[in-house]
């Protein structure tokens, strides 16, 4: 669980959005408000499916699933074999 979250943090804060000090970006803070857009969401899902060996169902690809690190981790975790 923590491993998933830390990999997601590295990827999103390193490549998809900016924030003043990544260590201060909380796990419940809003990623969409911080600038995660539709292209970023696509990159993120591609990364997550490959990295964690999951298939994320089409109908669950909605802004709420990717709104925060906690939401994302929970979502990916629920599809792990």
């Amino acid at each position: 669980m923590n491993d998933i979250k830390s990999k997601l943090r590295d990827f999103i804060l390193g490549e998809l959005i900016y924030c003043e000090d990544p260590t201060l970006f909380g796990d419940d803070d809003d990623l969409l408000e911080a600038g995660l857009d539709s292209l970023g969401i696509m990159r993120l899902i591609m990364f997550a499916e490959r990295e964690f060996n999951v298939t994320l169902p089409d109908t669950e690809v909605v802004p709420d699933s990717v709104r925060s690190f906690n939401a994302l981790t929970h979502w990916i975790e629920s599809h792990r074999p």
Partner: protein
Amino acid sequence: MDLLQGFRHQSQINPTGPCLVEGETILSYAQTARRAGGIARAVQSLALAPNRPVAIAAPKGIEAACAVLGILAAGHAYLPLDMKGPEARRRQILSESQVSAIAASDAKSGAGDLPVLVLDQIQEADFPSQSVSPATIAAILYTSGSTGTPKGVALSHSAIHAFSQWVRRLVQLSPKDRIAAIAPLHFDLSTFDLFSVLSAGACIDFLPDTLTSAPSRLTEWLETRKITGFYSVPSLLSFWAWKGNLKKARLNHLRFILFAGEPFPTSQLRELANSLPAVELHNLYGPTETNVCCHWPVDRARLSDDQPIPIGKPACGNELRIDSDSSELQVNGPTLFSGYWQRGKLTPALTDDGWYRTGDLVSINALGEFVWHGRLDRMVKIAGHRVEPAEVEAALSGLEGVKQCTVVAIAGDLGMQLAAAVVLDQDLSIARIRQLLNQQLPQYMIPSRWRTCAFLPRLNNGKLDLQAVEKLFSQRPPANITPAASSRRYAD
């Protein structure tokens, strides 16, 4: 030919037909004409100098579309601002373009002492019947500029008309069509939505922006709204084909999809084509300066191998030629722009004999189709948006503490990504730079990959070694941005 002629005609023969739809609001052709007529009268009452553009500061939707029609009917050019981009860039464009007035959804959108027309406070009026001369500038669309500042492409009524009528015939638009408008107004794809669709008496339904982040909901929306066609960019279509739940979709009304703005990777286009076997697909090509000048109707039989798809054959009555020395594609014909809009004036930008040099490298294949190979300069496309690395570099160089910088494009799984290599003073961080850039540049122009260096790699002759810069990004960064356990909140 006046761009509004088709709309005027439709509002007479088809007054009760649905014209603009946004959420639950539906405006008929007659209602749209009255709204736009009121805006035209309000613009005329300002008695602006002829040929001055009027900016539009309103999100994509009914209000903004009526503003376009009204400004054009008053004989002025519309200049749509990117409402999602940073305020500083909007101000830069307002000052550079020397607009005469702003049509806004909000009185606070003013700048200096420019008159502001607040769109929802304007009384309706009859739509003006006098036509506008075809050479009049209709739209000024700002795009990224290689000199470091945004650059305004000025398109005449006749140029947009030539494109919009060609594509109207291509997909045989009729009053039965209902088209999803996806592109914002400052993006040239929107001229199809506004002018092809309204001249055909069809209906524009404005797609809510949030749906581009939820592909399966986009599918449901297209189903329930009975959308018959739309025009978008490959990156959005790839996401939709991949996660749009298309296998279970019942898109019975959808007849066509047009795409442009960037190359569509063949494997991703194949996935889209296989999911929508009955839908016509068209690859349109053309820098904003040409509207559209080349077209390939997607031939599904040719998607089985992974050859890049062609940009096809000349479109909209244009002539194309390839410069024999540089292999650059050059265009001449009815859809060409009138020039760049610089400091309130039109600056012609064609060759002496009237050709536009695209900067794109092309060849012709055995079937006589044009094939795109890349750029002569450094311009890149990010999700269909044009980005000049020089403009990003200019913004970066303007930041205190950035000693040197260069911006390159790196090919990723999902198209191009911008990457910046910077030499910094000690007390500046990448995070801080990204924050400062966010105040100046739209999101798609902000590099997503970063490297700090002690110096930038150079060739023996002192020029930047761009290949060596690109190599800096070929490995993943050593990421170490896991939060301290104690810090949970995001601080401004």
